[in-house]
C-alpha cells in the first residue's frame, strides 16, 4: 500500500460510479471507496470478488444440524431412553418428528450467528474499534475514492477532476 494517497470527493453516487469506471479504465488501482450508503453495483464496477459468506453460512447450518442430532440422540435415545407419554424412544428415527423443531432452530441459530460473527471478523468490526474514516462527510452525503500515489500525483489529480470530483486532496496514509 502506498504511503501517500490521493482522495477524491464526490457528492453524487452516479458520478462516483462513472468515476470508478473511468479510473479503472485508466488502470489505476482503487484502494478504497467510502460511501454513506450501499451504492448498487459499486462492487462490480470496482471489480471486487463476490462474497463467500453464504457458503460459510451453509456450512455453519450443517454444523448446527449435526449438533442438534448428536445432542438429542445422546440425551433422549442413548443415555436415558425413558418412556415419556408413550413416545417411542427406541431409536432416533422413530422419535424424530419430535426433534425436528429443535433441529430446525439450531440449524438457523448456528447459520445466522456464526455467519454474523464471521462477518465481523472478516470486516474487522468490534466495540472500541477506532473508526477508519478519512473524511467525516462520507458518513452523511459525500463519496470518497482513494487511490495510491506513485509519483504520478498531478496526472491523477487531473484525471480525478475530470471525472467530476468536488474536491481532490493528497494525504499521507498512516499505518
Amino acid at each position, binding site marked *: 500500500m502506498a504511503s501517500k494517497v490521493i482522495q477524491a470527493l464526490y457528492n453524487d453516487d452516479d458520478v462516483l460510479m462513472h468515476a470508478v469506471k473511468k479510473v479503472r479504465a485508466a488502470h489505476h488501482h482503487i484502494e478504497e471507496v467510502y460511501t454513506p450508503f450501499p451504492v448498487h453495483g459499486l462492487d462490480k464496477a470496482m471489480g471486487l470478488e463476490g462474497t463467500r459468506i*453464504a457458503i460459510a453460512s451453509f456450512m455453519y447450518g450443517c454444523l448446527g444440524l449435526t449438533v442438534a442430532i448428536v445432542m438429542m440422540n445422546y440425551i433422549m435415545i442413548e443415555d436415558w431412553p425413558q418412556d415419556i407419554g*408413550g413416545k417411542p424412544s427406541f431409536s432416533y428415527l422413530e422419535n424424530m*418428528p*419430535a426433534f*425436528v423443531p429443535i433441529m430446525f432452530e439450531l440449524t438457523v441459530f448456528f447459520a445466522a450467528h456464526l455467519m454474523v460473527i464471521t462477518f465481523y471478523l472478516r470486516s474487522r468490526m468490534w466495540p472500541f474499534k477506532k473508526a477508519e474514516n478519512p473524511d467525516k462527510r462520507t458518513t452523511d452525503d459525500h463519496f470518497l475514492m482513494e487511490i495510491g500515489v506513485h509519483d504520478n500525483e498531478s496526472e491523477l489529480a487531473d484525471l480525478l477532476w475530470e471525472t467530476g470530483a468536488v474536491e481532490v486532496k493528497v494525504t499521507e496514509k498512516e499505518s
Partner: protein
Amino acid sequence: MYTFSNRLRIGSFIAMAAGLLFLGIGFVSAPSTVEEAKAMVASAHGDDHGGGHAEEATGHGEEQGHGAAAAHGEEHDASHDTHLLHQLQNRPWSALYVAAFFFFMIALGVLAFNAIQRAAQAGWSPILFRVMEGITAYLVPGGIIVFVILLLSVLHMNHLFVWMDAETVAHDELLQGKAGYLNPTFFLIRAAIFLGGWIFYRQYSRKLSLAQDESDDDSNFIKNFRWSAGFLVFYLVTESMMSWDWIMSLDPHWFSTLFGWYVFASMFVSGITVIALVTIYLKSRGYLENVNNSHIHDLAKFMFGISIFWTYLWFAQFMLIWYADIPEEVTYYVARFQDYKLPFFGMLVMNFAFPLLVLMNSDYKRVNWFVVMAGIVVLLGHYLDIFNMVMPATVGDQWYIGLPEIGGLLFFGGLFVFWVFTALTKAPLQPKRNPFIEESKHFHY
C-alpha cells in the same frame, strides 16, 4: 406471436391417444365381480411380496406393516371381498381423478400466482403475464373434466367418495352427522360455484389484460388490479373449501384444519414450476426476447421458497397428528405409513430435499437446465403428493403405479400441453401497454 410447433402438437396428440388407451385398458381390466377381484389379488400376490420387501429395504421398514397387510390378505369374509372389489374397481377412476386434479390444480395455482402478481403490482413479472394467462386457459377444460368426474361419482359410477353411498351413510353415524355438508346436491352446487368463480375471473382478467394492450389509458389495468384483489379473497375461501370437498372428503371420517393450505401450497409450487418450465421452453425457441435469467432466477426463488413452505405445512400437519396420536386422526397416517411407504417418503425427498439442495445456490437458479431438472422432480413429487392424498382412501393397499396411472398422466399432460400452447398462440407474448412492462423488460437482479 407464438406459433405452435408441429412437433409439440403431434407429441401432445400422441400422449393423449396413448393416455386414453392406457386408461381404457385400466377400466376394461378392472374386475366386475368378487371372484375376479380375488383372482387378481391372488395372481398379484407374489408381486406384492416383492414390493413390500423392496420398500422395507429402503430403510423405512417396519415389520408390522408387512405382517398386517399379509394377515389382511388372508381374511376372507364376504364384506372384505366386496371391499376389495370396490378398491380394484376404484383404481382406474382414482388414476383418472388424480391426474385430472393434478393438471387442473396447476392451472389454478398459476391463476392465483397471476392474481397475486397483479394485486401486488410486481415490477418483474408483467412480461410473463401472457405465459401465465396461457397456462390458466387450461382451467376451463380441466375444471369441466374434474366437475364431470365429480358428477359421475355422484351418479354412483364409482366408489371414490364413500359418503355418496346412501347405504353406507345409513350405517354410519359420523357420516349422518356430516350429511348437512357432505350431501351430493350441495356438493355439486359448491363445486359449480367454485369453478364458476375461478373461470369467470380467469376469462375476465384475460379480457381486461388484452384490452389494456389496445386502450389509451390505464383503466383496464386498474380494473384488473381490483378484480385480482377481489379474486384472491374469493380464492382463499373457495380453495380451502374445495380441498375439503374434493380431497379431504375421500376420507370422510378424518379432518385436518390446515388441509386447505396444504393443498394450496402444493398447487402453488406446481403452478410456479410450470410457469418456469414454459417460460424456459418459449425462451429457448426465441419467443421471449426480453426475458432474461433474472426472471428465471426469480421464478426459481419462488419454486425454492414455496417448496419449503409446502414442507412446512406437510410437517406441521403430520407432526401435530403424530404427536398427539388421537386415534380418530392418526388413522390417516397409519394407512399411509403401512401401505405407501415409498411414495410417501419419496415425495418428501422430491418435494423438499431435492429442491432445497439444488435451488439453494443463487447461480444455479439462473442455469436453465438446473431449473428444468428441479422443476421436473418437483412436478413429479407433487403428482405423488396428490396420489398420496387420494389413493389410500380409494384403493387402499391395492395401489400400483401402472398403466392407468401413467395413462392418466399422459392423457391430461397431452391435453394440458395442447390447450396451453394453443392459448399461447392467441395473443402476442408480450403485453404492450402494461404500466410496469418497461420495468419488467429491464428487470435485473
